[in-house]
């Protein structure tokens, strides 16, 4: 099975403190550590596990710049056969639809049985997967937390829904799935793995390579744009209890008694 996984390089929220920059219109990017978007990593691991069972190759693709190559290489170190960068100045400022259009152009470039994305990105909108499916006219399922390959070009997938329940679906290939974290346990990629793929080729496709019209992508084609970042004025918020620990506990117990939580 030929699987394409769309990945994205994002600032790592667990290892960064996201703050506004001095101008107050973007986040402070100087000290940021980037890594692959966590759900995308789960998606690649899932793809690798599927191809380990049924054969095939895993290709990882991202839309971005040279900086984003490191994420492709990391997934190649994990086991993806190929990493592809879709890069062009014309792509800058693309909204979700723009990204989906760029990815669609690449999909038509090859032949893929299954396309995976992570369910959402830290700074994204949980949209690219669904949009890509609609553009390709492929069936789609989001929040997928388990996949089994069935005979006859079908998959059985479960979706995560409320209450921890699972919605079981049967879906025809080719299709697009957006993957939720926790679907598997991704394997470790160490420094050695990264070094081993450091010299492998990562082909880059530009807008013309992909036959894309600039008006459909990038800032020109974007219908949704971010005007700035801001930190909203904090509302009243919680009543913060002050004092030393003993005093705080005493106050808390009083409050809880009043609310009927202590009898």
């Amino acid at each position, binding site marked *: 099975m030929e699987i394409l996984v769309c990945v994205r390089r994002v600032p*790592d929220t*667990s*290892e*960064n*403190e996201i703050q506004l920059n001095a101008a107050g219109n973007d986040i402070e990017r100087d*000290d940021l*550590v980037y*890594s692959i978007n966590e759900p995308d990593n789960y998606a690649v691991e899932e793809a690798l596990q599927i191809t380990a069972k049924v054969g095939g190759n895993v290709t990882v693709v991202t839309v971005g710049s040279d900086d984003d190559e490191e994420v492709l290489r990391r997934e190649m170190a*994990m*086991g993806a056969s190929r990493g592809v960068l879709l890069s062009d100045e014309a792509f800058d400022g693309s909204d979700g639809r723009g990204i989906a259009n760029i990815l669609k152009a690449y999909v038509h470039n090859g032949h893929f049985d299954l396309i995976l994305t992570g369910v959402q990105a830290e700074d994204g909108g949980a949209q690219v997967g669904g949009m890509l499916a609609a553009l390709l006219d492929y069936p789609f399922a989001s929040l997928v937390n388990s996949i089994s390959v069935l005979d006859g070009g079908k998959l059985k997938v479960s979706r995560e829904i409320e209450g921890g329940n699972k919605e079981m679906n049967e879906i025809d290939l080719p299709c697009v799935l957006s993957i939720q974290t926790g679907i598997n*346990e*991704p*394997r*470790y*990629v*160490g*420094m*050695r*793995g990264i*070094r*081993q793929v450091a010299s492998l080729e990562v082909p880059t496709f530009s807008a013309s390579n992909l036959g894309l019209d600039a008006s459909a992508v990038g800032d020109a084609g974007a219908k949704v744009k971010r005007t700035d970042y801001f930190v909203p004025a904090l509302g009243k918020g919680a009543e913060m209890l002050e004092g030393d620990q003993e005093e705080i506990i005493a106050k808390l117990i009083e409050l809880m008694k009043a609310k009927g939580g202590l009898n």
Partner: protein
Amino acid sequence: MVEGIQSPAQVTYWLMSGRTLFPLLNLLGLACFFYIAARRILPLTRGERDWRFDQPFVRLERVLQFWLGQWKHPRYRTAGTMHILFFAGFLILATQAFSLLILGVSPNFVLPGSSGGVGHIYDIVKDYAATIVFLCMIVAAIRRIVFNPARYEVPARYGKGHPVDAIFLLALIALLMASESLFEASGAAFQAQQGQPAEFLAVLSLPWMLKGVLVATSLSTLQTLHFGAYLVDVLTFYFLLCYRPFGIQFHVETSLFNVYFAKLDRGTVKPVRWGVSDEHLDQVKSFGVKAFEDFTWKHMLDFYSCADCGRCSDECPANAVGRPLSPRFLTIKARDYSFQHYPMFGRAGNGTKLIGGIYSEDEIWSCTTCGACEEECPLLIQYIDKIVDLRRGMIDDGNVPQSLQKPLKALESRGNPYGKMEKKRAEWAKAKDFSQTCTVKTADAKSNADTLYFVDSITSYDDRMQSIGRATARILDAVGVNFGILGAAEKDSGHEARRFGEEMLFMALRDHNVDAIKASGVQRIVTADPHAYNALKHDYKDLPPVEHISQVICREVKSGNLKLDPVENADNVYAYHDPCYLGRHNQVYDDPRDVLDAIPGLKRVEMGRCRDRSFCCGGGGLMLFYEPKEDQRMGVKRVQMAAEAGANVIVTACPFCMANIEDAIKVAGMEGKMTAIDLAELVDQQLVRPAPAELEHDKLRSEVFA
């Protein structure tokens, strides 16, 4: 003419004369043995290389100390004493065994130089030796059957024990001694009856006693006993020789080599591959041990040399708390694997994966690398290198528990396992109350600091451990050390990254730190973190001398430069817990104790397991992120040990020990009954500081008399 007793060579055994039979037996026996030895050596030829041929004199010295001198044996008194006795016995009897064998070929064989005084003395000594060995075998068998010490137990998950085999071997050795003694006794009795000058048998020795029993036996019976005993002796000898390589008794042959080739450098871990420098590591196809053949030949020899005594597992803290790790079975399972896959006949097997086969992942991740096993093993078998190699293999395969992936990734991207920002690494030194009294400068090319205080990650970022950093800084200040820290330029020492198998990550951290240290121009390094201490001292190369803060304090106290106030609460009883990487791995036991004893009025007790028998607190570095399967925490056991010793304060000298012990006090429900304090914190508390007025006065003096 009175005939002397016939020598076995001259006798006809059923169909064959002794002179034919015994050379044949000798030949067969030896051929058998050499074939078996060759098959046993075969996997070693397929193992990885290991550089063990350096420093021959040091190695010979260690052979004298550990092999001949049985240095580690008395640590377990009963078994150790017995072993020393029958080991001495075997050595003494070696010559006797040799000449006995030749006797079957050449009837009047006498070892050159054995006639005369030396020979007589030897005859006496050897008789006692045989007796002692014989007695030891009986006692050992009784001990095994009746008392069966706990450490010989084989838990079900590790397979079946071989108690019958053990007794069988003890019985065989006893049989060897008995047949030898009977051979001698029958000959002497024969001669005595004939009135001939008898060989002198040592009084009260086994041969002597047997001779006493046989004194009235008929000559023909004696003759039969004589060559019967001889045949039994030869058969038993060769049987043992050929049987030993199939079990734990193989250590009889391999122990000398195992000790000779044992690891010399303490505290560090073997390279990924001997002979491959760091720059060329990329070319190595596979890191670590995945299949049996990935072990080095010396590690395979270790597997052969295990006597299954269980001392390692007895001391292993992971084993004590119910983790799936038992060092003894790490070795025995590998040995059994090699026996199974390299059989006497048939194809020598190759490359099935060990992890998921004889070893489980948790088994290998459970090790805290405390070194108790290695400290205990009388045969100097190494464990840490093997565990690290197995971990390297798992890392290479991407097979890492999710709980460890996060801190490893954080180490890579942020230089500390917590994922905190680099620029905040020196925040601990900016705490308001602290920075007013003690300025901590950055040691870089511009500063004139001659000493580097290497803080390392936990002390830099953990709210609780930062106080150890501040205490250490204040102490260094008080004794007038011109020190600085690397600050944001410091990255994790990488000590645990290396021991968890991430060699390349370790190298990246190491190279970064070495550059920063060299750029700072410092001439010595001090740290309060034993893991950093060990890394800087042994894993890093070409650095200025490294000391632990306890060594600095000890020196300053002894020279009188540092004075300590008496304890506030004279009722407190303090117990010092030896951190594994300060104590056992680096043998710094006395300095911290001397410091404590220098505090007036401080009552100190020793825990039962102290110094090189100290019980690991639970491990440091990445081990704090791993979620082991265990019945109990190591820290809880340690805290209970302190309470048993009568202490209510545990003194540690390692931030990881502090983290584990403080946690354990809570989990064990001993809050209020037990506290923990770091040595540096305690000293900082007790430091005699000049009163402010004095300080001013000193300042004026220095200005006036500058």
